[in-house]
């Protein structure tokens, strides 16, 4: 109830709002499902540990391993927070890294600014090919900042 005044004012000033939607906070997608093929100098990175980290209200991570073709997948992750009831910006920093010969190489970093799944790529599924030998590039096409060695798989 500490933020009641701002909610009240919002409702008073905008009486036509649909009250349900205000509280329809649901869950926030903190990391969409991921499917990437990891390559190094054009060759699949096989049986390598890939880490996925994200930080919304706290930092969390999970891991998976590339298969014989260099593919690795992660399911979507959702979290809830009462902060969604406040008019504040959603900022979920995310990164993907792979451990190669004991060295952790970050190949994809992003700031997720929307709660919806697949907002990392503006609604498209995160299905990409990542070439570790390439330089990271800054991408600003999806309403946020992304540093990446990955290119979306256009076929999906």
């Amino acid at each position: 109830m500490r933020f009641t005044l701002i909610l009240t004012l919002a409702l008073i000033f905008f009486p036509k709002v649909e009250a349900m939607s205000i509280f329809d906070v649901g869950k926030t997608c903190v990391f969409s499902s991921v499917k990437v093929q990891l390559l190094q100098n054009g060759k699949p990175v096989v049986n390598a540990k890939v880490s996925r980290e994200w930080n919304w209200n706290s930092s969390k991570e999970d891991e998976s391993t590339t298969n014989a073709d260099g593919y690795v997948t992660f399911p979507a992750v959702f979290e809830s927070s009462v902060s969604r009831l406040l008019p504040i910006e959603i900022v979920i920093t995310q990164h993907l890294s792979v451990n190669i010969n004991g060295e952790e190489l970050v190949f994809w970093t992003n700031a997720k600014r929307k709660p919806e799944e697949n907002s990392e790529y503006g609604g498209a599924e995160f299905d990409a090919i990542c070439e570790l030998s390439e330089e990271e590039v800054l991408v600003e096409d999806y309403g946020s900042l992304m540093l990446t060695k990955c290119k979306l798989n256009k076929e999906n």
Partner: protein
Amino acid sequence: MSGSTLTPKFAAELAANVYLVKDSDGRKMFNAKYKDAFNFDESTMVKGKTGGIIVKKEHVMAFMGVGQGKYKGQAFIGIKGTASLYDALTDLNAGVRSSHTGFPVHQGFYSAFDSIQFELRQFLSGLQGISVVHCIGHSLGGAIATLTADWTKANSAIPTVKLYTFGSPRVGLENFAAKCTSRIGAQNIYRAYHRTDPVPMVPTWPFFHAPNTEIGYLIDSPVSAVPWKYHLMEYYINSAKSAGSWEGIANNRPQGHVESAVENWLKSDGVISFTANTMELLDAAFIYVIKKVINLSGIVVVTGAAATLTLLDRMAMFMAKAGKVSKDVGIWVYHLVKKMAALIGVKIKKGVDLTVTFIRSIFMRLHKKMADMIWRIGQEVS
């Protein structure tokens, strides 16, 4: 508009990207985005060794950077507030206290600014050859950026300080807004806000926005199912891109309710209820009556003494005192209190003794009614 003015797009994107400095991943992207604009080094910026500082406090985060390349000779201070500050923003009973430059501001914003003042002083003292400092912030960050710009102009030899805010709440009382405007210069303040963004509407009476002039950057926006949709930076960035220049959105500040309409409303006896128009009129009426009281009686809101007094205490004291000064003044206080009382279903008669306790109880009950209303809505939909 001078050549060193940031474009709306640059300022809006910077206000949005300040949110990224919260962790190393975010700073890495922030650095990649602004490596040509700011003298930043991810390995040293947190410690502030080479002109770039990241400040992380309980209620506020900020970056302070020195411009380079195209931005040589300029410095940048970007600020974001944290969710914990919303308690302060939504607390109608919050205190008002004298700012670091000596004028009444919201207690919560004062404390947030106070927490970064040491680093700000440190940053400014290290600047050389800087002719302009840009202060940028969104939402609560805009409020703290306002205090930062005001303090920087008052306490440094920097020739020009420019302030860019997006969806900022009101920071201080009228004399703060006036002094802040004259100190920084209205032409150096770019306060952008969407018509349907509720945050710039709070805190309510008697807080004012700076600049207090006709210059404004009001951007049209539709009513949304989510009330604060147009408070989000995504939409401010879109609006900034569409505007292209500050001139493209300038001079749209609404004139508010004309005085005659406010007077007529105050004097009327019609039934009133909680609607957008009623709240706008009440806001305008409150400001109108305060001005009337100050002009006719010279009474000002007590802000310096007795730190234990809340804003409501002070306003109640102000109104009660004003109500007893003369008939000319008292009648407007009576009309205002009568309107507020009507909103909570209380009828007051002409000649009633408007004591501090009585006026304060009306203020509190009105606030409580608003809170109860939203509580009921919350219960019904959850």
